[in-house]
C-alpha cells in the first residue's frame, strides 16, 4: 500500500530525513521508534503533505501512485490520515462542524452522497464509543481547552469517523496517563483490519504493549537503522536508544530494507 524510497527531506533549512526506505502492506501495523530529533514527526508530516517540509529526493508511492504530488486534502480524501502529535486548537469552529465537513469531503471524493444531519449523527454516535468520547466535547470548538488526553482521543475519534486506509499516528501516546493510553490504544486496535494499514510513531515501547505491531523500525538521525519484529521494541526498551546510536556512530550502518 505504501512504499517510501530513498526519501530525503529538509525542514527549517536542515536535512532531517536522510534516505528513508520503508514498505507497508495492507493490513499491517508498523511501529517507528526513535529518539527525539530522529525525524519521526518529519516523516509523518511528509506523508500528510505539510508544505513546510521540503522533500529533496526520493519518492512515496501510495497504491502505486505518487503521494508527494497530492495536496494534503487529496491525500486525506484518498484515505491517508495523520493523528497529530500536537492537535491544533481552532477556536470558533465546532468539532462537529469540522468532522461533518471532513466526512462529506471524503464521501464526495468517493462519489458517494453526502451525509445529512441524521445519518452523520448516527455515525458519530457509533464511533464515539470506540474512544469513550464525551459528547460534550463534540459541540465545543476543535481541541480548544481540551486536556492532552482529550485531544489525542479526539484524533483517534476523527480517524474512526473518517475511516481512512492508511493511518499515521504521531506520538499519540505521548503525555497520556495509563487509562487514557488504554482507551486510545483500544480505539486504534478496533480500527485494525485487513484493508487498513497503520504506522504508529512512538518514543516509548509502552504503547506497543497495547498496539502490537507487525514490524518495528528504529529511526535515528534521519535513517532507519534497524528493523525487526515486535521483539525489537522490547530490546530497545531494555537497552535504550543509546544502544542504537552506538550502532549508527560507525559509517557501516546500512539502511534497513523491509
Amino acid at each position, binding site marked *: 500500500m505504501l512504499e517510501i524510497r530513498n526519501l530525503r527531506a529538509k525542514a527549517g533549512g536542515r536535512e532531517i530525513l536522510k534516505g528513508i526506505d520503508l514498505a507497508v502492506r495492507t493490513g499491517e501495523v508498523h511501529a517507528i521508534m526513535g529518539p527525539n530529533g530522529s525525524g519521526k514527526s518529519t516523516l509523518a508530516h511528509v506523508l*500528510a*503533505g*505539510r*508544505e*513546510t517540509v521540503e522533500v529533496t529526493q526520493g519518492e512515496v508511492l501510495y497504491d502505486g501512485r505518487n503521494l508527494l504530488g497530492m*495536496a*494534503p*486534502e487529496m*491525500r*486525506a*480524501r484518498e484515505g491517508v*490520515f*495523520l493523528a*497529530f502529535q500536537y*492537535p*491544533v486548537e*481552532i*477556536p*470558533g*469552529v*465546532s468539532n*462537529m*462542524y*469540522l*468532522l*461533518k*465537513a*471532513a466526512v462529506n*469531503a*471524503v464521501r464526495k*471524493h468517493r462519489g458517494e452522497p453526502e451525509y445529512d*444531519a441524521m445519518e*452523520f*449523527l448516527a455515525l458519530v454516535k457509533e464511533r464515539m464509543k470506540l474512544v469513550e468520547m464525551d459528547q460534550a466535547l*463534540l*459541540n465545543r*470548538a476543535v481541541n480548544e481547552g481540551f486536556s492532552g488526553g482529550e485531544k489525542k482521543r479526539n484524533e483517534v475519534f*476523527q480517524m474512526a469517523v*473518517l475511516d481512512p486506509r492508511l493511518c499515521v499516528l504521531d506520538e499519540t501516546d505521548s503525555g497520556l496517563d495509563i487509562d487514557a493510553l488504554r482507551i486510545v490504544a483500544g480505539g486504534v486496535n478496533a480500527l485494525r483490519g485487513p484493508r487498513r494499514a497503520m504506522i504508529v510513531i512512538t518514543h516509548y515501547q509502552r504503547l506497543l504493549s497495547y498496539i502490537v505491531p507487525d514490524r518495528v523500525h528504529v529511526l535515528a538521525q534521519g535513517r532507519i537503522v534497524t528493523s525487526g519484529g515486535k521483539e525489537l521494541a522490547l530490546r530497545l526498551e531494555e537497552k535504550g536508544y543509546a544502544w542504537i546510536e552506538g550502532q549508527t556512530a560507525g559509517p557501516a550502518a546500512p539502511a534497513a530494507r523491509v
Partner: protein
Amino acid sequence: MSTETSRAGRDRWIDACARARATAPAGTAWMDGLRAGAAARFADVGFPTTRDEAWRYTSLSAVENGRFDPHPAPRPEALTPDLFQQLTFEPWDCNHLVFLNGRYAPDLSRAARLPAGVRLTSLAEAVVAVPDLVEPHLGRLADARGRTVTDLNTALMSDGLFLHVPRGAVVQEPIHALFVSMANGSPAMSHPRNLVVLEEGAQAAVVESYAGIDGGAYLTNTVTEIAAGDNAVVDHVRLVRETAAAVHLSHLEARLGRSAGVSSHIVTLGGGLVRHDVDAVLDGEGAECTLNGLYVLEGAQHVDNHTLIDHARPNGTSRELYKGVLDGRSRGIFDGTIIVRPDAQKSDARQINRNLLLSEDALADSKPTLMIRADDVKCSHAATIGQIEENALFYLRSRGLSEEMARSLLVQAFVSDILGRIRIGPVRAGLECLLFTRLPRHHAPRETA
C-alpha cells in the same frame, strides 16, 4: 492639494450650510439656532486634516473638494422588492423606517405594535410634532465634541430616526432604520441624524443600516445620539454596506445614566472610505457599556474606527472588542481611547483589537490609549495583527477540507465571536449569510449539529 483648492472646497460647504438654513422648514427657532451654531463652528475650523492626531490615517480632502448634490431625488424604482427584502433582513418582520437619499419614505416604512407612549417617527416629524422631546437632547451630546464633521451634519441634517421610549417602557421588537443611497447623475450626499432617547428603566433595540444600491459615488455623513436614562437598556447595531465608491462618515454618541446598559455593534462590510467616531460616556454610577466592531474589507477599502469610552462615574464597566479582516489592498484602523476620570473609582475597562490580514498588501493599524486618572481601577487592552495560522490551515486540510474552504472556515471562526454577541437574531443571521457568501466561497455558518 493646495491651500487654495482647500479654501474653495470649504467655502462651498459653508455655502451649503447657509442654503440648508434658508430652506429649512420655518417655525422652529431653536432648530435654526442649532444649525447656525454648527455652521459657524464648521466655518471657523473647516474639515480636519491629517495633521490632526485623530485624523492622521484618514484624509477628507476628497470630501472637502468633492461636489455633492445636497438634494438628490431618489429613484424608488431602483429599490426592487428583492433588494428591499435583502436590506430589511426578510423574513424579519420588524418596525422599520426607510430613508432614500436621506429622505424619509413613509410608504416603505412601518411603525406599529408599539407599547403605549413610545414614539417612533422620522426626526423631521418629531421636531415639529414633539419639540419638547427633541430639543433637550438633539445636539446636546454630539455637538460638544469639537468635531466639525458632526457640526456639518448638524448644519445640514436632513432626517433620520427618532425614538423616544418613556419611563419603564420596554420595546420588545427591534427597530430598524434603513438608509439607502442611490446615484442620480451627480454624486449625492445625505446627512442622516438619529436620536434615540430612553427614559429611566426603558428598553429598546435599534439597528441602523446604510446601503448603496448602485455602484455610484456618494457621501453619507451620519450622526446618532443615544441617551440612555438611569437603568435603561439599549441594544444598538450599525451595519454599513455602502458601495465601494462611497464615503461614509459616522458619529455615534451615547450617554449612559446610572446603571444604564448600552451595547453597540458596528459592522462595516462596504464603503470605500469609512470613518466611525464612537463616543460613550458612562455618566452615571455603575453604567455598563459594550462597544464591539467588525470590519471585513477587500479591494482598496479604507475604514477608520475611532472610539472613546469615558468612565466619568464610579463602578462603571466597559467591554470593547474590535476585529478586522483585511484582504486586497484594504486598510483597517482601530484607534481606541479609554478615559477614567479622577472620581470614577472601581471602573473596569477591557479593550481588545484583533486583526487578521488575508493579503500581503492589506494594512492594519491599531492604536489603543488608556488615560487613567483614578487609582482604583481595572483596565486592560490588547492588540494583535496576524495572519491565518499555517498550523490550523494544515490541520483542516489534512482532514480533507480544500485550502479555500479551510481558509474560509478560519476566517469565519475569527469573526464568529463578534457575530455571536449580536443579540438581534435576524440581524445576526443576515450578517452571517452576507459575510459567508462574501468571504472566499463556501459558506455554511457554524452549526451546533
